[in-house]
């Protein structure tokens, strides 16, 4: 009798142990990025081997993928992986030690997240700039000119039709139809929304009351699309629509962009060169954080934004440090030539020099 009871109890006990073991196996922390056996290099042409893992900003994804495949001819024994997931994920993965570098459209790290980094110094490397176009769909109207105040009123829902006097004042001689304005915005949170709203906040003054964040509470009449491609398709298919779309996606969809008045009063058309100009004349902090929106440079396109790759200053081993120097050095150096074809803008020369000088700070 007792033997049976003991057997029943033993069965349950073994089952619990099995459960506990399987959970312990699952919960063991994942290994950190790089594992390699080659000796650390001191020259930029020395062959390195190992794996680098990065994640974060989806704005960087296209450039990272192009750079990773081009970098294979520079360092054939190195493997670099970039999984997107958003800037928030990029920062949290770096803090958790899951990745070697994180892509983030926001810098410096928000104060709510600083404790996650446990006091370790993070280096910010600006990687590229990108213009955000204001694309619209008005048949027969090209070369529309807009400024920050009018944009703020359009995207707050205050201007509801295209023949509004404020738009007419900026575009004398253009016949604007009475079509109602439909604003196209992002349904998902993104760095594009963050920087577009930051521009409206900085340059639009009191006309903009919705704040700046990766998610904005747009007026209820706004139509939301998923990703830059979603907003582009809303603009393309809706007469009278106006939306903010990344330059690369706007060009791919064949949209018409407006020229925006910059802080010097010039109306500038979005392009890789006018976006690079936005990197000149702005205040750059010593840790290389800055805002490229509303740049004071006279040739700059005002709605330009940027992305950084974040790395820890002190790396766990010398090979990690060497690999990061090689790859990040490529991103800010030779890799910049890839940007024009992708629809992004290379760093201005001042930014590039500062970033390259900061490379030597990566130690182990």
């Amino acid at each position, binding site marked *: *009798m007792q*033997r*049976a009871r003991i*057997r*029943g109890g033993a*069965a*349950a006990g*073994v*089952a*619990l142990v*099995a*459960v506990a073991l*399987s*959970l312990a196996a699952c919960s063991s922390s994942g290994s950190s990025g790089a594992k390699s056996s080659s000796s650390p290099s001191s020259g930029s042409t020395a062959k390195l081997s190992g794996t680098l893992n990065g994640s974060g900003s*989806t704005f960087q994804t296209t450039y990272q993928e192009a750079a990773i495949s081009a970098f294979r001819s520079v360092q054939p024994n190195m493997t670099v992986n970039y999984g997107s*997931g*958003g*800037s*928030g*994920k990029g*920062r*949290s993965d770096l803090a958790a030690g899951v990745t070697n570098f994180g892509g983030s459209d926001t810098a410096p790290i*928000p104060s*709510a*997240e600083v404790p996650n980094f446990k006091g370790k110094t993070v280096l910010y490397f600006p990687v590229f700039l990108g213009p955000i176009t204001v694309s619209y769909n008005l048949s027969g109207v090209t070369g529309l000119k807009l400024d920050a105040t009018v944009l703020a009123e359009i995207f707050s829902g205050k201007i509801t039709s295209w023949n509004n006097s404020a738009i007419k004042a900026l575009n004398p001689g253009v016949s604007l139809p009475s079509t109602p304005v439909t604003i196209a915005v992002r*349904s*998902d*949170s*993104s*760095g594009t929304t*963050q920087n577009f*709203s930051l521009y409206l906040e900085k340059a639009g003054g009191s006309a903009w009351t*919705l*704040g*700046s*964040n*990766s*998610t*904005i*509470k*747009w007026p*209820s*009449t*706004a*139509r*939301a699309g*998923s990703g830059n491609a979603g907003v582009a398709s809303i603009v393309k298919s809706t007469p009278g629509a106006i939306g903010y779309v990344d330059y690369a996606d706007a060009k791919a969809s064949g949209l018409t962009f407006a020229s925006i008045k910059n802080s010097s009063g010039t109306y500038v058309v979005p392009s890789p060169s006018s976006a690079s100009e936005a990197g000149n004349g702005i205040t750059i902090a010593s840790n290389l954080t800055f805002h490229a929106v509303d740049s004071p440079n006279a040739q700059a396109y005002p709605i330009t934004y940027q992305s950084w790759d974040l790395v820890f200053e002190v790396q766990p081993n010398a090979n990690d440090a060497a690999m990061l120097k090689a790859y990040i050095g490529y991103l800010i150096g030779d890799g910049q030539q890839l940007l024009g074809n992708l629809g992004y803008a290379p760093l201005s020369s001042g930014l590039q020099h500062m970033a390259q000088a900061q490379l030597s700070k990566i130690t182990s």
Partner: protein
Amino acid sequence: MSTVARADQATPAGSARALSERRPLGDRGFQVLALACGLLVLVILVLIAVSTTQQASSWFTTEGLKIFARTWDPATGQFGALSFIYGTAVTAIIALVMAVPVSIGIALLLTEVVPYRWSRPIVYVIDLLAVVPSVVWGLWGILVFAPWLQHIYTDIASGVNGIPILDNLFGQPVSGASFFTAGVILAFMITPIVTSLSREVIATVPAIDKEGAYALGATRWEMIRGAVWPHSQGGVVGAVLLGLGRAMGETIAAALVIGSSPTITSHLFAPGYDMPAVIANQFGESYGVFKAGLIGIGVLLFAFTIIINVIARGVVERSARRKRGA
């Protein structure tokens, strides 16, 4: 030794004790494995609940009761989730109102009206609806269905303009993406589940009850109402509640067609938001209290779905017990 032998003779032949003493190793091993799997499911469920609540704790503590506030605006630091709870409730109700009569009707059709030979292909086709992936429903919804519905919405809105209650319900369409479109797509998605579960429950009605009703002179409808429905109502209600649980949790299809606008409005044709959709859309770039808030919305959704499922089980159990007693 002798006491053990006497004990063996004393126990009845089919007792579990006698069986476990003589059970082969494979049987015992299987018992342990099955027990482990069952416990694993329970442990995982508890771990999910505990870890998500832990990660959402900063939202609960910072906002307190304001988690049920109307405004969700990360730019100004307001994280009230009421508009998402409202959206989930509204789309689920619309889905139920459209799907339940159709599903029960199909179930009754297959069991009472259609000859058995035709019911198998019809069941097959309905089950195919269940196989369509959620993201395909969402894409079809936003690319084909919503633009088509947009014209219908504007026609209805201009038609009811001025009529007191209807123009509060059916006014102000913005585009095809709205509470109503999401509700209809969810109705398509839950119809197969509710239909197949209801059909199986209705098929268990004993033929004697049905024949008896016919013998007493009942028409087909009177037979259904008198013999089929009392027998199967518990199971059908349980099926409906399970469909409701699925409608509440459906993520991608709803996220693509609901319009992504966190507002509380009576206008069903206006864009809205629901709990799974906001998590899917806004999680990537969130951090701090914003991220904790999204995880917290997930905890609330988890809790609501568990409550609905517990109620469903309770209703099914209670009616089964009543039937067994009768």
